């Protein structure tokens, strides 16, 4: 089992679902959903206001979270809290993926609003 030290790794980010959610199950039967999150916001940097944009993949593992993620439609606004990890094991690749621990649906035209689920 993992024996890495405990250390801070927490990301809370809000944004819009950028594409269809992929859904699958591992051979052991654990549900995994994955979608891309587009983030746009105003932030202050070096004392100046600025705009920030980024796109990050989100993994939602386990039945409750994967179900919520699976119901998200493109364009839905969500807030995701979780930890980040590398997206694949290849050496020299530093892309990140956000592993959701909680997903709050902030605004969605197509599904019931403010559904949330979490592992906490």
């Amino acid at each position, binding site marked *: 089992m*993992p024996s890495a030290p405990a250390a801070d790794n927490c990301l809370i980010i809000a944004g819009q679902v950028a594409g269809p959610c992929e859904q699958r199950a591992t051979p052991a039967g654990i549900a995994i959903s994955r979608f891309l999150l587009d983030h746009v916001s105003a932030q202050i940097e070096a004392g100046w206001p600025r705009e920030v944009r980024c796109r990050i993949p989100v993994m939602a593992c386990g039945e409750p979270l994967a179900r919520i993620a699976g119901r998200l439609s493109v364009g839905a606004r969500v807030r995701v809290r979780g930890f980040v990890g590398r997206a694949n094991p290849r050496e020299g690749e530093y892309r990140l993926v956000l592993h959701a621990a909680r997903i709050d649906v902030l605004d969605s035209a197509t599904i019931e609003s403010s559904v949330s689920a979490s592992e906490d």
Partner: protein
Amino acid sequence: MATVSGSILRVAVPSPLDKTFDYLPPVGSDPAPLQPGVRLRVPFGRRHVVGFLLELAPDTALDPALLRPALKVLDTEPLLPADVLALLRWAQHYYHHPPGEVFATALPVLLRQGEAATLPELLPRWRLTAAGETALAAAALRRAPAQRALLDHLAQFPAGATAAELRGLTRNSSTVLRALQAKGWIVAAAPDLAAPDTIALPPVPPPPLNPAQAAAVAAVSAALDRFQVFLLDGVTGSGKTEVYLRLIEAVLARGQQALVLTPEIGLTPQLLARCRERFPGPLAVLHSGLSDRERLTAWLLGRAGQARIVAGTRSAVFAPLQAPGLLIVDEEHDTSYKQQDGFRYHARDLAIMRARYLGIPVLLGSATPALESLYNAQRGRYQTLCLPERVGGGREPAIEILDVRRQPLTEGLSAPLLARMRAHLARDEQVLLFLNRRGFSPVLLCHECGWLSLCQNCDARMTLHLRARRLICHHCGDSRPVDQICPSCGSVDLRPIGQGTERLDAALRGAFPDIDRARMDRDSTRRRGSLETLLADIHTGGRRLLLGTQMLAKGHHFPEVTLVGIIDADQGLYGVDFRASERMAQLILQVAGRAGRAEKPGTVLIQTHHPDHPLLRVLATQGYPAFAAAALAERQLTMLPPFAHQALLRAEASDAQQAHAFLDTARALAEPHASGVELLGPAPAPMERRAGRYRAHLVLLAEQRPDLHRLLHIWLAQLRAAPRQAHLRWSLDVDPAELY
């Protein structure tokens, strides 16, 4: 103590010791039945075991006073005929294997345990009476069709038929039989063993022979009185079976028996079915799927001459026959003829020796003969009989190589293959996909840290079986539930990598939801009878997408298959074993042979990442003979079998060092005697660790066979005497079929 000349019994006792044991005759026994070939109960250590009397010796190297008497003579006459005894003695020396184990191999389990060698009471046979014949002629049974069917059938068999044989003809056959008996039209009588089973007119007239078949039949028929090896080299679908049947017919007509060896009984039901159809009367079948009792009965039927045809797998080569006339080895290239543990004999090679002892012909048949056999044919040791064309004018399938480099593969299937499958399925034809890997995927991978599902006992990966949700090692059999999270980093994102038949099946269900599939591999046919059901479904056209492992490749005819896809040909191209490409070519052609048997021409598509591999190209464009010529040229350059003779000393221990140390010692012992023999190694086996044991080997290579055997003879005695670690095991394999 003086002994009477010839009164020392030299006995093979089931033990791993490479020697025979001397006994005195049982106290007060009748000397008459003491002939080589009878079984004896003898004391051995503190146990009583069943031994096999090899010879009556005039004296013993031991102090006769120390000899113990045998306890009992178990047979009144030799159990094995002289030819089998001679064969076993030859094999014992050739394979350098302990006599006790060699002789045990030749006997059914129950006989090894001391059971009496007598056939169970014979079943009565029903026969037509004169009154019955009159009734049949007078058409008295117009209103009793079941009775009539039985009488019609019995009219064809003057020797009668057993109730079991008649069971299939009507419903309630036993009631019908009683009714006919009450009318006095049939009688049941014990079979008359003196009268040969008269072969009435065969129910199905045999198909006419084409000129090549006729020439083959004529050549062997002309040699029925002498030893000759024939290599029947016939493309798939060329009617080799019909040649076998005609020759069997000729042999039976001479009052002799035929012995037919096949690689696996379950996989060659059609050959047996055709034998049964053509030659009514008992057919003895010997294979590992029988109960010990059934096996003994079949063995005794052949020995007594009651079964005119004896068919079986590898060990049937030792089956005693009362009047042997012909030996047939079907699919002679098949590796399952080589025993892979214990007494490592090759049944094809032994069949040839046996035919030599008997002075009768032996017929080796294959569409893809082993390179060894082709080489022997080239040198004139075997006479080649070619069947270059398919019967009925069918064409051999065209082979196309499909380059899948840089092609997106959907679950292992390329777009061109999928398109071709669609076209054939749209025409209501059958498609066969071959993937020689069972399970869902050959490995499970952690997408985040790269962990692989390795077996803890072997240098191998554990295969994912998704339905069972287990990881199973196909090498040692170890298994465990599939991991929920990565054992190394804890991630849940574990992914199956690569394709097995289970995954291919799931992918096809997605791609062709309306087409019924038949998956044939060891997992899907584990239940008794499931293979037969599956085959029946395929033949009625109920399932049109067939997929499977090499189980699909052997022996079956699927006349409606017009497209064969070989999903991954690359496994065999770069194997460690020098025979890997030969095996791959044979397998591809065997699978290809399933296609286009009827009027519809077949096509074979081979998916590969190495479209320019020279042997694959030759195979696809010029066929097996050209492939074999190229492969033989390569073997000659590299001095590998059949241009040299090989033996392999294998050692395994729980510690790699021990295995190597033993082989180093072995090598040092061999060197003084190694003139004409090249010693290679020790080297670790291709899969060094298996089932928790480390394996290594030493290869012996000799241009001249006598050099090799001279060395082996001296060397093995030294090896057996050499001190070694208690947990080390070693074995010798003469003419090994694979490195491990």
